């Protein structure tokens, strides 16, 4: 017993707040509705979370680097549509690659505007959010991209099939999370991102190429939004020009819920993914409880504000 108490003391409870929040949320939801714990519902949550998790991981890069990216939702749509269009002409591989490349290109443009031109990231990515959405409508003419006979079968299967009982869509963030966590925690590059976000001036005076580091975080964010766009296209069996609306808000909320600081320099990739689960489980719970969808928006907005307020209080303490 004393051992348990001792161990409990050693755990840094404040650092585990996202996980505790998620567990409490799951317990409360499962008590309110028996359907929450059904296998179908749980699978649903994981699949829904998988796409958002990929976006949130990219967003975490930007936020740790001291930035902000509002354009990810539009980038998801752009990548999905370009992937679908390229796939119909040149095959699956070319489609996937060009979808991700489109996302990375948007990220690079954001990164250069923010890092080299020193435009406020909020304004820069607000602009690119609208601009990219416009481009999506121009290239698709506003209609879904699925060709006459639909997207290639193997690609569509990727959106539904499983490996070792787990959806392919869930494997993607799992693998990315492990690889990118190693990048962030153990490589010089990752440590430079943390240092730049924590104190840009000090990092510069320590010989960090801060502009390149900042630009790179946007490239990661864009490329991962591209991956998410391709995943969503597989799931929807088409490139949807309207896809990904408000994804940026969910992703930012998830990252902040996961304990990253909007002032930069702090954050952990896996905790951002826990933040994604909090957002998805919340939405799922409200759905199961038949809460009106208008009220759901109110709830999600309130959570975003609460998460940002908590961030502010944390940094004051």
């Amino acid at each position: 017993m004393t051992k348990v108490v001792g161990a409990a003391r050693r755990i840094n409870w404040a650092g585990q707040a996202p996980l505790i929040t998620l567990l409490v949320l799951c317990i409360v939801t499962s008590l309110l509705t028996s359907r929450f714990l059904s296998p179908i519902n749980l699978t649903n949550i994981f699949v829904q979370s998988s796409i958002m998790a990929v976006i949130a991981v990219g967003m975490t890069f930007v936020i740790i680097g001291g930035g902000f990216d509002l354009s990810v939702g539009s980038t998801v749509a752009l990548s999905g549509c370009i992937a679908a269009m390229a796939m119909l002409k040149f095959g699956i591989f070319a489609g996937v690659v060009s979808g991700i490349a489109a996302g990375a290109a948007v990220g690079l443009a954001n990164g250069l505007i923010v890092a080299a031109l020193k435009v406020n990231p909020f304004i820069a990515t607000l602009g690119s959010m609208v601009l990219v959405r416009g481009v999506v409508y121009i290239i698709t003419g506003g209609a879904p991209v699925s060709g006459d006979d639909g997207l290639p079968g193997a690609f569509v299967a990727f959106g539904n099939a499983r490996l070792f009982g787990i959806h392919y869509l869930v494997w993607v963030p799992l693998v990315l999370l492990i690889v990118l966590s190693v990048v962030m925690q153990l490589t010089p590059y990752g440590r430079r991102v943390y240092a730049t976000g924590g104190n840009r001036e000090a990092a510069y005076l320590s010989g960090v190429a801060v502009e390149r580091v900042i630009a790179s975080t946007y490239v990661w964010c864009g490329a991962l939004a591209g991956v998410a766009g391709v995943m969503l296209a597989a799931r929807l069996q088409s490139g949807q020009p309207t896809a990904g609306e408000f994804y940026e808000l969910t992703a930012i909320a998830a990252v902040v819920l996961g304990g990253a600081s909007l002032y930069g320099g702090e954050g952990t990739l896996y905790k951002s993914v826990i933040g994604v689960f909090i957002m998805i489980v919340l939405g799922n719970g409200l759905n199961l409880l038949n809460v009106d969808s208008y009220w759901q928006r109110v709830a999600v907005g309130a959570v975003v504000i609460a998460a940002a307020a908590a961030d502010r209080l944390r940094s004051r303490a």
Partner: protein
Amino acid sequence: MNDIAAGAQNVRKRFGATTALDGVTFEVAAGEIHALVGENGAGKSTLVRVLGGVVAPDEGAVTIGGREYRLASPHDAIAAGIVAIPQELQLVPALSVAENLALGDLPACRLFGVDVFVDRARMRAEAQTHLAMFDFAPDADLPVRHLSFAEQQILAIAKALRRRARVLILDEPTAALENREVEQLFAVLRRLQANGTAIIYVSHRLEEIVQLADRCTVLRDGRVAAVVARGAFNAADLVQAMTGRTAIREATVPATPGGMLLEDVEPRSDAIHLRAGEVLGLAGLLGSATTDVLARFFGLAPRATIARVNNRLRRLSTPIAAIDAGIGFVPPSRKLGLVMNQSVYDNIVLPSLGLQRLGRGAGRRRYRRLVSELMEFLDIRPRQPEMKVSALSGGNQQKVILAKWLLRRVDMLLLDEPTQGVDIAAKAKIHALLRDFAARGGGVLLSSSDFSELAGLCDAVLALRHADIVARIDRTEVLSEERIHAAVA
């Protein structure tokens, strides 16, 4: 003492596991300048923050004018007549001198019984009469960002004293002032003293305290180590009371300069030649070019400097280029040198990340060992590489910045005010370290507004006036504070 203006009775304050104040009793009388000294971590700033209403004590009481107060915020303290001037001045850079002075109660023109417009003329006139009391007559419409730091300091004091302060608390007010301006500030303080204002004066500069203070309270480890009256103490006594040791003599072994390390190749009026084994000081009045010289060699100037570094011609266009050439820079503010929310370890390895000769193969374990060796060598306390650097005292933070460059194994160190706001023991340690660095064949170029520091530490001092080097004073001649002062003035 007659008429106690303010005091703290048996105050205790704990932060987590550390006891910052352990039963401190402190009093300042009306018309008294009472100095507060102690090493970093001795509890000076906590005591000042308790008196200023920023921090509430766990036990004990604050008295002002004989009444006991529970100060919940700086507002309460100001209302009770205690005004603290922090090291970082709370002025709005974009607003004018007059506006900054009047901020909080701007005079207004009334229209239909409602305050509408700011009465600029009245505000300006009030500012001028008020500032005249301080022998200070700037253009009242000038934005504050155009004032020198010293002028801003006086403005901040003037602002504080618009509201009849009974007690004024000054924290390191002379840290960025040059001698003439220090005199100007002291004159203001003495005038306030004559008017009956009680002044609590926190400083590391013991000579100033000996010169200025009526009494001096020495804090050590959260307790009062001594309270001494004017005439009964000198600087060495204070050091002994603060540290519990006798004053550490500064190392003044002259080095034997070796080959040229850093040399300007373009003809210019502030050309520098730094040899291996040499500690070279830059002396100048505030706002002069000493900082510019350091910034130029670290690639921070708008135009890249071409210099011969270690016998290779280098274009020093960015910090990356400078570091690559073997130059390290210790900036004037620790906030520029450290990523405060990261650990000591992360900060120390930052300039060396990805460096082949340190990393690769040997890997993180080798880094960890090197960092703990450096922490041992520099006596960085506590010896916890995973501790957040923001939790360290100022002196230890400065050592962390030095450790960054020692791990990177630079050949030259450029330092801007390296011991500003650092306590005596850490200052001596940093001086010894710089001498040692030079003795091993490194070159040191430092600027300091503390000329006694330059006189004690350097092999030679370059005196700058505007952007020109007007004199070089070598240790072989007589190198003294007075000589340096005469050269720059």
